[in-house]
């Protein structure tokens, strides 16, 4: 197990390095620099001075190693679009809204999806099964900005129950959280249904029924425990994906979260912030996948990691 984890960590380090090099090169290959915008034109001398003060006049590989050396010390540089603070300060200011809304979305959506999937699997081919399937397919195929727009149209424009956008009062959180919850709920409804159906057809369930166990005990003690395995493993990556904010949900509901910075760091050539965002998300995904694999192995004694064929 420990050997397996060490191997995975080495593999993560490799992935991380490759991603950082590719992103760094791509970022700098985009024509134009941070001071080439037309909003505030600066003379060539000033531009040269600014670039020199930020180290942008040095060869790319020097810039890369300087930046990565900083990253190893949790120094992600200074965001050019907001030079009064460090990148870390900007992230710690912009992340909480995304974390609250996205996190709440997953924490509400996932259990609801599990319940829906369970109901669908236990009452196969009933109206609730069709409803769950329809919901799961819709949730995964309709783009999230369309879902957001639908919510705004119905609850803010026609019914006028909730504010269409904003961030401040908790009741303005309801619509964005609902939009965030749609994907986890749909994913979990789908996963739970298929995992439960998979287990329900296993011979050991028939044996349990023949033994005369109550249906409730069969479901909760045996079927659910076996079906839970794939469900546990998708949770962490999904949480990371949602809680780092969605560009679309945040743009639709005017939430001052991380989402907007993903776009602005690219359009404004805000190299430090761009690298910081991509490296951060990549690293969190790597760790999430590693942790889910470990949890999977711990929960499932049938899997012996490290001795894979």
């Amino acid at each position, binding site marked *: 197990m420990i050997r397996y984890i060490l191997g995975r960590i080495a593999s993560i380090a490799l*992935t991380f390095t490759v991603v950082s090099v590719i992103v760094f090169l791509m970022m700098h290959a985009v024509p134009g620099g941070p001071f080439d915008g037309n909003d505030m034109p600066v003379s060539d001398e000033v531009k040269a001075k600014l670039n020199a003060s930020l180290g942008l006049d040095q060869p790319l590989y020097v810039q890369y190693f300087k930046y990565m050396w900083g990253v190893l010390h949790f120094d992600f540089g200074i965001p050019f679009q907001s030079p009064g603070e460090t990148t870390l300060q900007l992230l710690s200011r912009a992340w909480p809204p995304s974390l609250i809304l996205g996190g709440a979305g997953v924490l509400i959506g996932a259990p609801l999806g599990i319940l829906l999937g369970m109901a669908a699997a236990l009452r196969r081919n009933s109206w609730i099964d069709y409803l769950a399937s329809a919901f799961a397919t819709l949730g995964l*195929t*309709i*783009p999230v900005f369309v879902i957001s727009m639908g919510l705004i*149209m119905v609850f803010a*424009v026609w019914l006028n129950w909730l504010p269409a956008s904003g961030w401040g009062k908790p009741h303005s959180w309801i619509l964005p959280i609902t939009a965030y919850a749609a994907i986890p709920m749909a994913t979990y409804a789908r996963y739970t249904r*298929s995992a439960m159906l998979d287990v329900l057809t296993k011979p050991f369930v028939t044996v349990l029924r023949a033994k005369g166990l109550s249906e409730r005990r069969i479901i909760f003690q045996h079927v659910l425990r076996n079906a839970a395995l794939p469900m546990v493993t998708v949770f962490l990556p999904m949480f990371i994906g949602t809680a780092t904010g969605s560009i*679309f949900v945040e743009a639709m509901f005017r939430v001052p979260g991380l989402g907007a910075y*993903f776009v602005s760091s690219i359009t404004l050539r805000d190299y430090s912030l761009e690298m910081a965002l991509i490296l951060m998300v990549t690293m969190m995904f790597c760790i999430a996948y590693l942790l889910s694999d470990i949890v999977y192995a711990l929960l499932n004694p049938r899997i012996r990691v490290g001795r894979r064929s």
Partner: protein
Amino acid sequence: MTQRSPLYFALRRFADNKAAVVAGIVLAVIVLMAVFAPLISKTGYADQDFLAQSYAFPSGTFWFGVDDLGRDFFTRIVYGARVSLTIGFAAAAFSVLIGIPLGAIAGYYGGWADWGVMRLIELFSVVPPLLAAMLLGALTNGGFLTIVLIAALFGWVQVCLLVRAQVKAFREKEFVRAAAALGASPGYIIHRHLIPNALSPIIVGFVLAIPLAMMLDASLSFLGIGVPPPTPSWGQMINVGMNFMYFYWHLAVFPTAALAITVLATTLFGDGLRDALDPTLKGR
């Protein structure tokens, strides 16, 4: 007694799946509309023939109303299907072209080749596609071909994994070992025996890559880095329509519905195809 072919059973299983059949019909209608767009629309997609009636609501003359620049909105939506479907099919084709060889090599040779391909896939699984797509879009200034290539760059992974699994499962079968014993080269075995046996996952992978590419195109267009105007793209129309949502609902609702219906139909059709071609996978 005549013997039924596997294709017959696959078709029968597909016909039993009502959702998939309806989705297939809807998809066929959309494809026909896209192909014959000039025949069913009165004007060109960029003609500003109705400037005086800009923002007009849907009516008998203008089925979907008129947009902010005086263009017949029904025409724009119909031509949008062309853009969306072309991107979807082209990206899926490229995904298959990348995914098959890599999947076959990883599955057949195993060892280092497999390790390399799996690390490559890992790379694509930890980088959020939208971020990478935005960066690539900025790098190449968008455009039709770019969108197709970006979508293929993230679409091949699924095809590759499907092909790899299938090739791995068939590699040790007797007929493959017999072919090898007769002196067939690995290239011949892969091309003559393994890939034909992986055909149904490839078809499924192809169909399911289409909606993903269409979603990515819509998302990028929504952010303004998709296909440049005046080419009618649904994502771009949604983006514009959003600005007028409170007053002229039709500008946002029609492209949204068009996108949702097309993506939904393609996904359901693909799901049905997968269940029909490979009954053991049913319900996943």
